[in-house]
């Protein structure tokens, strides 16, 4: 930013462009793979430009998910599962965290700090380190192969509660006092003042949590045994199997493209909320 020489002018562009191209390269090959037929790919001569089987591949993956060698549920169904899972996790986490943060910040009651620490400590217990016992709890509750089993254990999270707590602490006392003088009770204050003020935080958190839910892997792998409950991320690894050369790569790549579409679209369209959410949940 200080020098104004010709070298300083082209170097950043060259580096950034290289970065963009390296990042985009896997997507480009996937795009090409999804527009050719399985034979061309299986022979190992994948062209450098898109082919003409695109429509065919995508519609086959979307409505059947099954080709000559791969067997999976229709992508439409798997994406619906992923979508329900991601939305339930995002909305559930936000709802549960909003009210618990409200209780911790705006009320004084016995054991308040104990409960706060109870929530806080769950930061340190990611699902990966308690897989088997959690699986047992879920199976004891008869929640295997249900959306309840898929989403409930992931709904409680300390991060969202901490974020809302931080935000609630910045709300001026005068506002709360004014609301009380005007006769607003706790629920009315929450509904008509706090919720509208939290809109941007909710939006930012929703973007992050939707991605979190959509990209879940280990948990759905354990909890869903029936293929009708497969999420798209699980489905695509099932399609790959052992990764033979002679498989329906055209369908696998179409599925990969479709699996990436919603989360990538969310990041690109809601970039502002995404960056805000990312920075604030990690703060």
């Amino acid at each position, binding site marked *: 930013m200080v020098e104004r020489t010709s070298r300083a002018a082209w170097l950043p*562009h060259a580096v950034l462009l290289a970065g963009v191209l390296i990042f985009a390269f896997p997507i480009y090959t996937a795009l090409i793979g999804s527009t050719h037929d399985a034979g061309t790919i299986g022979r190992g001569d994948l062209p450098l430009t898109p082919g003409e089987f695109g429509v065919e591949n995508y519609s086959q993956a979307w409505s059947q998910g099954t080709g000559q060698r791969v067997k999976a549920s229709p992508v439409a169904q798997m994406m619906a599962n992923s979508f329900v899972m991601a939305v339930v996790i995002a909305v559930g986490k936000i709802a549960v965290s909003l009210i618990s943060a409200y209780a911790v910040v705006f009320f*004084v009651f016995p054991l308040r700090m104990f409960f706060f620490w109870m929530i806080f400590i769950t930061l340190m217990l990611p699902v990966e380190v308690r897989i088997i016992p959690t699986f047992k709890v879920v199976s004891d509750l008869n929640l295997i192969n249900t959306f309840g089993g898929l989403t409930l254990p992931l709904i409680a999270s300390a991060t969202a509660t901490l974020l809302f707590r931080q935000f609630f602490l910045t709300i001026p006392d005068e506002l709360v006092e004014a609301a009380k003088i005007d006769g607003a009770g706790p629920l009315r204050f929450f509904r008509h003042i706090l919720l509208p003020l939290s809109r941007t935080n909710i939006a930012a958190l929703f973007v992050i949590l939707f991605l979190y839910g959509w990209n879940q892997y280990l948990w759905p792998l354990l909890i869903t045994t029936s293929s009708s409950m497969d999420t798209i991320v699980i489905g695509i690894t099932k399609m790959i199997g052992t990764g033979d050369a002679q498989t329906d790569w055209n369908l696998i790549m179409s599925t990969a493209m479709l699996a990436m579409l919603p989360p990538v679209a969310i990041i690109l369209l809601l970039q502002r909320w995404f960056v805000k959410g990312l920075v604030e949940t990690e703060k």
Partner: protein
Amino acid sequence: MQRRVVFDGKVLPYLLLAPQLLVTTVFFFWPAGQAVYQSFLLQDAFGLRQNFVWFDNFRVILSDPLYRGAAARTLVFTLSVTLLSMAPALLLAVMADKRIRGATAYKTLLIWPYAVAPAVAAVLWLFIFHPSIGVLGQAVRKWGIAWDYKLNGPQAMFLVVLAASWKQVSYNFLFFLAGLQAIQKPVIEAAAIDGAGPARRFWSIIFPLLSPTTFFLLVVNIVYAFFETFGTIHALTQGGPGKATETLIYKVYVDGVINLDLGGSSAQSVILMIIVITLTAVQFRYVERRVHY
């Protein structure tokens, strides 16, 4: 810590807390307690009786060469992923921080891989590096390297590291960029006037000022490589060939879910819990960016 003006309520706060406490207790504390309890038990060969064996499970695991192998691999894997996802991110962030045309467009084009699921990222790289049909897999073979990640352990590790790092660069890029933009520009301009060149300015001023961000990202990336890469490994190599890509988290899954060794797998879970707790504590202790309590 606490607001001055609060609402009255005897029952309402408990009702508001109830959903979160319920989920937390049923799906966090109960299973975590079970894991700790199970880690002290040994099932007999017929699965009929369980004996309380104190720290035997831990002793067996920690002296097991297979577990030590997995721990060493996890270390190599974690260090490689952390380095490979942080160094390019820093370079890109430094470039994007300069006043150039199209900085916003570059930023947009550099952050989207964060959205790709680890398992999907694995599938994309598998398609590229497949020995017989992949674009780069075939190219590497033409250069005379016997490339086959399904047979060669180090090559499998390389591919897993690549797929795991690729999507994490975006995350690090965003945080490095935010860190760079927070540095006061006059400090750098003053150094330039004093005759420091770009390289000198970077290493003597920018890099030290960036160290809180770097340290924070270090912890986040270690946690990512430890826990969130399960999908990458499961989709790409399933821990193979042999055990070449079996990390600690993958071993918990194999021992518990596939080999049904509950005591051993629980003891491994407890060890992982201790690692996460330590990392989180370190982060809270040393990173000022964190929330203060």
